[in-house]
């Protein structure tokens, strides 16, 4: 009976882990993002980084949020280089993990 429960628990955990995919989320503070040509220019430069799946730019807060494939690591240095290419000075960069339900963005 114990074995059956163990197998059941293992299967349950496996099911949960496969239904929740993880993506890396990177938040970057950038000052002076009010002009659309600057903001979308920054988006263009950050899009060149491999593994970036989505970029959200909040003009009012000067906050850029990158969604990155879980298998890809993007260094702070790479992000800072792209921000400087776009004509800005990079601020604080914060990495986090975000659970995503399959089909959430559909």
């Amino acid at each position, binding site marked *: 009976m114990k074995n059956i429960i163990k197998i059941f628990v293992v299967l349950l955990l496996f099911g949960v882990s496969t239904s929740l995919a993880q993506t890396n989320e990177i938040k970057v503070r950038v000052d002076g993002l009010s002009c659309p040509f600057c903001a979308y220019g920054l*988006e263009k430069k950050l899009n060149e980084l491999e593994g970036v799946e989505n970029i959200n730019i909040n003009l009012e807060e000067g906050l850029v949020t990158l969604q990155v494939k879980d298998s890809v690591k993007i260094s702070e240095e790479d992000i800072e280089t792209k921000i400087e290419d776009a004509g800005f000075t990079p601020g604080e960069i914060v990495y986090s993990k975000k659970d995503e339900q399959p089909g959430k963005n559909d």
Partner: protein
Amino acid sequence: MKIVLSLLLIGLFILVSCKNSGDDSKQTVKEWRFQKEIKFDDIAPTGLQTDGEHLWISDAKNNRVIKSDLSGNVLNIYAGIKRPMHLSVYNSKVYVPEYLTDKIKIINGDEIEEFPLKEKPDAPAGVFVNDSLIAIADFYNHRIILQRGNNVLFIGKEGHKKGELYYPTDVSIANNKIYVADAYNNRVQVFDINGNSLKVIGDKDKINVATGIEVTGNNIFVTDFEGSRILIYKLNGELLQIITVHLNKPTDISVYKNVMYVTNFNGSSISIFKKL
């Protein structure tokens, strides 16, 4: 003594009054007056052109170009254009710079085609087309690309001196001259058709990011994005009028006959002004 003091005060008052009226005279030609504002549902307009019958609006936020009538009733939406910017209408075709892909898209009827560029820009912010050439504001390369058939001419380079550009966002051609919204030099620059620098306009007028430009037979119209203003000049650079009302982070202007349309990037709207 009192009489002398009184006379002095009166003289001073007259002097100050004359000085103030002199300052105002710099922009007393208030030819353009606000008429109305057309609201759209959740757009962030960056580019605008009118052909006198329609408004063509680049909605950069939603990656699309909107075609409406002059009252703002949406007639068609062209989706999937990645961050469209300052567009140009010529011969019933709409030329749209696609900021994210460095391409120029052409809306031709219901079809969307691609213009064959000889040189690739880095973030094309504005385009102007006429029967012999295409001019592109090449934002990150700090230059204007002028393509005539197979020939390409680069105008400007990164810098702040006369003839140099710093993040140009829009370009217009009129009277055989090239007019550039030299955005982060906060001014307009004028070049001849061979790329020689002719004139700097607006550098004393405290423009805070000159994002959009329109040139007619008599006037130059410039958007001051951060200042939420429109500045109107004679072709020789003389300031005629500054408009500050009913504007919310304007990015582009289009003038047809006596009507001026202005995009409000933060207002999700188009402001309309008429010439008296």
